[in-house]
């Protein structure tokens, strides 16, 4: 057997010029397959942990996915809002550790504007317990200050101190602009790979005040705005970051919120609180467990995932076809070599085994080469991907899925080798020692 390995190795070395092409095509499909698999699983992980530290997301009675879509992904509007009173009541339940109100519906140049409080920056977590961090400025939304997600800041080219005007409704078309009340850019967040990157955060109080002012519902609107601005300046002077309570005291509370996030003191209370909210009498509410609903939502993109995997397997099959033709095309010129081996006593099974060994060795070389390129590419592109996409690609060991793909490639490649091996086996049986063909 050792001798067969030696023979196969020397044979491959001799034919390296043509085999290099086969090996490269195999390694490219390995690269593609593993690369897609790795990005897919990273996107899956990143997606399903778009929001991770939050125990419950609460909105007006609606479907689970629509609550997730509107509150976290800012896609579609909630049909109904939740009253501020309900929000306050539920947030003050004893199991609740923190709560973040969200008010949606406004936009700026197509990016959704989220009205919230500073708690958002303190408690929102994504990925594996990652907090939001500011890349520049401060991540706080008191007064008329706003905070931009990383992508928004890059796309719009804003800098700290720039003024933004918020539009009512979504879209680039300026239907109703709140032009007289611009926000001041106070901070820009680091990339997260979540919808946070695509969002603009403002104070929920300021947002409500603008709306009240605009619709003229509140005769005291000017005072409200003045109160907010004043309050913030005062707070900033004191470098006091826990002042949203002051703000809440001074500013008029909004009448309603689009939804809110809850963090519980004890995670084991989740189901109890979940049920309590869904059965909340004064107002019809729906609470969702973000992790569960995220996975439900991911199922929607399942066919795309499958398509990607199918495409990369097709690429693999093309590459295997390349090896097959390569091996088969050399068979006729190798009949002589096989006759020589037969003359020194090689059995047909040795001939079969030699070609099999060679095809396995080519596949293995292709796999190793492909994996090496993958890691090189990942290593080199890691900072770029993290920067541009907010995806942190781990250079770690293979996942079970990846090992499975590699094993499949190895086996498929080896099985492909059966065809030329068998042909060679048959040739050597009929040729015997006759090589004058």
């Amino acid at each position, binding site marked *: 057997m050792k*001798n067969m390995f030696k*023979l196969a190795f*020397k*044979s491959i*070395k*001799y*034919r390296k010029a043509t085999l290099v092409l086969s090996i490269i095509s195999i390694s490219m499909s390995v690269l593609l397959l593993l690369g897609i698999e790795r990005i897919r699983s990273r996107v899956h992980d990143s997606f399903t942990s778009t929001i991770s530290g939050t125990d419950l997301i609460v909105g007006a009675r609606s479907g689970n996915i629509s609550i997730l879509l509107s509150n976290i992904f800012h896609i579609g509007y909630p049909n109904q809002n939740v009253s501020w009173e309900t929000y306050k009541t539920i947030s003050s339940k004893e199991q609740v550790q923190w709560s973040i109100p969200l008010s949606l519906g406004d936009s700026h140049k197509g990016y959704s504007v989220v009205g919230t409080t500073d708690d958002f920056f303190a408690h929102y977590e994504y990925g594996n317990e990652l907090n939001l961090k500011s890349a520049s400025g401060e991540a706080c939304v008191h007064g008329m200050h706003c905070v931009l997600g990383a992508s928004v800041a890059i796309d719009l080219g804003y800098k700290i101190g720039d003024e933004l005007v918020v539009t009512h409704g979504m879209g680039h078309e300026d239907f109703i602009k709140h032009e007289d009340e611009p926000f001041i850019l106070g901070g820009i967040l680091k990339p997260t790979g979540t919808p946070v990157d695509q969002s603009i955060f403002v104070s929920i109080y300021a947002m409500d005040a603008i709306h009240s002012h605009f619709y003229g519902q509140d005769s005291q609107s000017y005072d409200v705005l003045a109160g907010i601005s004043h309050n913030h300046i005062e707070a900033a002077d004191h470098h006091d970051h826990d002042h949203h309570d002051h703000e809440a005291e001074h500013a008029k509370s909004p009448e309603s919120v689009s939804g809110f996030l809850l963090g519980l003191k004890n995670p084991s209370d989740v189901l109890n609180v979940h049920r309590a909210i869904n059965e909340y009498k004064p107002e019809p509410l729906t609470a969702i467990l973000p992790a569960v609903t995220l996975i439900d939502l991911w199922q929607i993109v399942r066919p795309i995932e499958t398509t990607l995997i199918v495409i990369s397997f097709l690429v693999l099959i093309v590459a295997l076809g390349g090896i097959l033709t390569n091996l088969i095309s050399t068979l006729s010129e190798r009949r*002589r*070599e096989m*006759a*020589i*081996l*037969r*003359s*020194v*006593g*090689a*059995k*047909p*099974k*040795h001939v079969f085994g030699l070609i099999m060994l060679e095809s396995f060795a080519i596949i293995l070389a292709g796999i190793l080469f492909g994996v090496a390129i993958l890691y090189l590419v990942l290593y080199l592109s890691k900072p770029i991907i993290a920067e541009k996409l907010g995806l942190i690609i781990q250079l770690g060991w293979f996942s079970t899925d990846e090992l499975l793909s590699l094993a499949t490639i190895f086996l498929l490649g080896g099985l492909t080798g059966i065809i030329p091996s068998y042909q060679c086996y048959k040739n050597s049986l009929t040729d*015997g*020692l*006759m*090589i*004058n063909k």
Partner: protein
Amino acid sequence: MDAIKIKKLSFQWKGQNKALLENIDISIAKGEHVFIQGKSGSGKSSLLSLLVGINLPQTGSIEVLGSQLNKLSAAERDEFRANHIGYIFQMFNLVPYLSVLDNVLLSCTFSKVRRDKILRSGKQPVEEAQRLLAELGLTGDEILHKMVTELSVGQQQRVAACRALIGSPEILIADEPTSSLDEDAQKSFISLISKECSLYGVTLIFVSHDTRYKQYFDRTFELKEGQLVLENEPQNKVSV
């Protein structure tokens, strides 16, 4: 005891209705040098493939070194060939991706018997290969480490002879080994392998369409219309 004993052998290829070899009877003694002459298509290759046990006759029997080839399985025949028969082809005898030395050692790779014979003589197979190569005039690092494809045809045939002879097989079969050589080289090649075979007591079966060299052999047969006809039995074999 005879090295080869063929009795009433008939053979035809599958799908052909006429027998290529018919009713052949021949005995070849141990150490005998036999020349088999025949035009192309006369069945020389078929006869050789029967002798080395690649194919089996439809009727009759072949006994080689006391073993009935038709009673051995295909794998046993392969092993038998590896252990007892050296074979030289007409041309392109060498595996292109192996060195000269590795080509010679190929015989020991597939035959434990041949390897053990060398080891019992107190040598390593590599040493024995080098000794044989030197005996056939192939010495020096340059030749030993050259790509086999860079050797001259004459050198290639001598390497093939070394591979056939290493590990002292009882029978050497040479299938038109000189037809790709020029006249000088033909003569020196035939004299070389005759000398080696005499030296080690190897039974030599030399097949060729070229009758010029038959006087160097003990007996000459001609393969004609499926029959093996004894042509001459030189009173005095010319030694080369």
